[in-house]
């Protein structure tokens, strides 16, 4: 027996979904590309291949390359201890991992300034050794790590929890060591979720604006990431250039969505296929 609403309700709801999402999701995206191409393709290409834009692109890619492996390692470690074990303080630890997700990015930047700024806790000590954190690459990496640290862990913890320890225990009983168990038994079960978290964390990392803006110092060609470069161009009346660079980031976002969709499809197939 189908549990459907009357046809008019159904169509009204579908129409509503399209209009609402069109208004709030599609239109902004269209605005980015529309404004980016306002001065034509040549201007578009010129603004995305200009040296400062390329430097920003490289910095953003470098940041992602630094942040992603750390996030993966942390996410897996956190998921292992939180997903496979029960212990006192587990709920608190889970909330703690979620915390960066709810902290305002400005606060995220502020805390690193308080810590590493010239007058912060560690500032004088760092200055003596001439280590720069704030207004240099490490500061950008730290801020990005802070805002992205929940992503992988959040995706993998529930999955590990759901899958329990039976398979791993069986492998151990059969004489496998810890690493073998992890790579042969656990990893195949969680790898898509890990990749899923990695994609989300990567998107956030490449797009982070507030936190990075506080710690970057905005030095053109040196500490300017792509989102900051968008803001700079926007502030220099170079609107179509700003939107051109923004369109690069939007393409990246669309690619993220595509990968995410593929993975979700893969994950559901895996879930339907395997545990039965």
């Amino acid at each position, binding site marked *: *027996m189908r*549990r*459907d*609403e*009357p046809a008019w309700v*159904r169509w009204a*709801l*579908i129409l*509503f*979904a399209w209009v609402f999402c069109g208004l*709030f*999701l599609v239109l*902004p995206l269209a*605005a*980015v590309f529309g404004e980016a191409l306002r001065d034509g393709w040549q201007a578009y290409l010129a603004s995305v291949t200009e040296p400062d834009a390329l430097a920003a692109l490289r910095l953003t890619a470098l940041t992602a390359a630094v942040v992603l492996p750390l996030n993966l390692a942390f996410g897996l*470690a956190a998921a*292992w*201890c*939180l997903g496979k*074990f029960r212990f006192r303080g587990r709920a608190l*630890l889970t*909330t*703690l991992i979620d*915390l960066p997700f*709810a*902290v*305002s*990015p*400005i*606060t995220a930047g*502020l*805390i*690193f300034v*308080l*810590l590493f700024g010239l007058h*912060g806790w560690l500032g004088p000590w760092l200055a003596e050794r001439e280590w720069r954190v704030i207004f240099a690459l490490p500061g950008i990496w*730290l801020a990005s790590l*802070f805002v992205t640290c929940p992503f992988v862990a959040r995706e993998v913890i529930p999955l590990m929890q759901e899958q*329990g*320890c039976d398979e791993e225990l069986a492998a*151990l009983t059969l004489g496998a060591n810890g690493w073998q168990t992890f790579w042969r038994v656990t990893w195949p079960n969680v790898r898509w979720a890990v990749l899923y978290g990695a994609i*989300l964390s990567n*998107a*956030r990392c*490449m*797009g982070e*604006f*507030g936190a990075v803006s506080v710690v970057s110092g905005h030095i053109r060609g040196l500490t300017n990431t*792509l*989102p900051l470069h*968008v803001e700079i161009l*926007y502030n220099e009346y170079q609107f179509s250039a700003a*939107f051109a660079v*923004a369109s690069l*980031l*939007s393409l990246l*976002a669309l690619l993220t*969505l595509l990968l*995410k*969709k593929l993975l979700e499809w893969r994950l559901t197939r895996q879930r339907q296929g395997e545990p039965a």
Partner: protein
Amino acid sequence: MSRQPRTRQLPGFGLTLGSTLLYLSLLVLLPLAALAAKAASLGWRDFLAAAAEPRVLAAYRLTFGAALAAAGVNAVCGTLVAWALARYRFAGRALLDALIDLPFALPTAVSGIALTALYAPNGWLGQQLAPLGVRVAYTPLGVVVALIFIGLPFVVRTLQPAIEELPAEVEEAAAMLGATRWQTLRRVILPAVLPAVLTGFALSFARALGEYGSVVFISGNLPLRTEIASLLILTKLEQYDYAGATAIATTMLAASFVLLLLINGLQAWAVRRGGGEQR
């Protein structure tokens, strides 16, 4: 979901817990401790003075008010969208489903300038709205619009699985017992998805409290009117007013933490009520 008691027979507990704690302490706890210590060094009176001056209070009011309004709109509209996505098959459904996550993936600065380009008085939508006397950009309404954009996926993504996993038998039983569709909706479906709606609402609200990038471009930053708390933290910071910045940041942080605990509690409640599997 089968959940057997965890025994510590698996290896690696010490290693992973240790490294997780170390990593979190260095990256999250230590910096937040610096914030707390700075706030504590103010003393109660100064802290209260900094955290409760009129301009700051207005910023809280706007931040919480707009976040609440946006989360409310999202809870209602997001539920309808999630319902359409979960229950119906229609042209472009897969595309729409993928698009829902756009605000997750799009950098906030990009959404900020895009929304401003749309809603400014000379923008695509702003032009249409201006004759009606509706101004969006540079008003509290603009803040709400940006926060709706940011928060939408949280509601839809929390609700979708909950709606999909509603047991069919209950609705059928209700129908067979003579309930109208409306009664079934009100008495059976709504109570079942309520925890998910609340969780989505809370997630969207929590995210909106801290949002910065997409709001600053569209809000106009008028003190007492369209200045959000995050921006005020930055403003204070730029005036060397570390005490003020810290006080506001600490207050907002406490609010976020309480919200997170609430969300985790809600999710546990949802699981207990069998409202479907939670992520």
